[in-house]
């Protein structure tokens, strides 16, 4: 039997990049410590702040909700949960109930916003139209842009000081690699633990950024937290290739993911000068902040013959 390097109890995990074995208790403590360290080192949360957490029902966002809820208990702050229903049949319908259930268990205020009610179509419907029109864009483009758009708007309407997402070490290193491959300096620059672009944008924080995805999986299993473990049916192409590449790199060369993140952090301060500054204004169509005439969401919607409805996502009595 393999034993914990710290307390001698039965090991549940070999953390190869650190050369240690961990038992269930030490594993849980370690994840929670890393979460707190990320918050303190990067000043992600200030006392008394209202933090909106994007909760899909998947393990990362649900873990993030539980950890932030514990962190903010007492006088440190307040947590509200926002779930975006993109309208992905056979996938999101499985995770939504778990987002709601976890918020309920924790006694956290929960808000649901949907593509259908904001844009008049579900992601599934948009994908069908896009294919028919031959836009050449993949589902993740619509989904990513529009989900961020709704999360920001909902968080702002809820008067949140920060918007927290469950991005883990794997997500971050994948995004770093993807932006390298696409030579997208502006997007690369945005991959910080806290990113606060401008007025109109709620600063986004990523407190799980230094925790490998597998460890978050272990954490929710060990804590008995109920989550939705499924892969999005639209996941394909370069995203999955980069994910698989990084996982085989990590399997053969432990610590690679951390080194990729560290190297990026070394470089990031120098990127500031290379990234052009934008003048912010309101989107002509929907009023959301953007640097161009139309925001990216309205531009994408226009391409498939849709338009955003000009209305609040969160009704006034609701917040």
């Amino acid at each position: 039997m393999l034993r914990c390097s710290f307390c001698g109890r039965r090991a549940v995990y070999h953390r190869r990049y650190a050369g240690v074995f961990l038992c269930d208790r030490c594993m849980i403590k370690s994840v929670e410590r890393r979460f707190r360290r990320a918050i303190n080192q990067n000043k992600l949360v200030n006392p008394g702040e209202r933090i909106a957490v994007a909760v899909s029902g998947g393990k990362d966002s649900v873990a993030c909700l539980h950890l932030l809820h514990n962190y903010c208990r007492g006088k440190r702050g307040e947590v509200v949960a926002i779930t975006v229903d993109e309208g992905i049949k056979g996938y999101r319908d499985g995770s939504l109930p778990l987002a709601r259930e976890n918020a309920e268990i924790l006694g956290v205020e929960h808000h649901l916003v949907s593509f259908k009610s904001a844009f008049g179509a579900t992601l599934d419907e948009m994908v069908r139209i896009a294919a028919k029109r031959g836009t050449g864009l993949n589902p993740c483009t619509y989904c990513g842009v529009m989900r961020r758009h709704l999360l920001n708007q909902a968080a702002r309407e809820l008067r949140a000081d920060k918007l927290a997402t469950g991005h883990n070490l794997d997500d971050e290193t994948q995004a770093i690699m993807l932006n390298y491959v696409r030579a997208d300096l502006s997007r690369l620059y945005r991959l910080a633990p806290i990113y606060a672009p401008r007025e109109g944008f709620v600063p986004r924080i990523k407190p799980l950024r230094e925790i490998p995805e597998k460890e978050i999986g272990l954490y929710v299993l060990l804590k008995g937290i109920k989550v939705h473990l499924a892969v999005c049916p639209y996941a394909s192409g370069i995203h999955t290739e980069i994910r698989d590449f990084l996982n085989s790199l990590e399997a053969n060369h432990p610590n690679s993911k951390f080194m990729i993140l560290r190297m990026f952090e070394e470089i990031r301060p120098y990127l500031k000068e290379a990234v052009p500054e934008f003048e912010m204004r309101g989107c002509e169509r929907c009023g959301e902040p953007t640097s161009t005439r139309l925001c990216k969401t309205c531009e994408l919607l226009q391409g498939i013959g849709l338009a955003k409805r000009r209305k609040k996502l969160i009704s006034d009595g609701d917040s």
Partner: protein
Amino acid sequence: MAVEVRVKIVGQRSTRRVKVEPGTTIAELLKKVGQNRETVVVRLNGRIVAEEEPLKKGDLVEILPVVTGG
């Protein structure tokens, strides 16, 4: 003498029987069945274990895919 262990991927119906040399670790078994250890958590006879744990005859190895990527 090779021994037989049962391998179940959680979320899939069937349980496979795999022959391994005694003392083979879970990590080695994962390679053999084409699973990346960075993407799964493994339960050995019902308990979550480190992948360096060696296998013996009749063990039940449950593989839980935890990396969903978003």
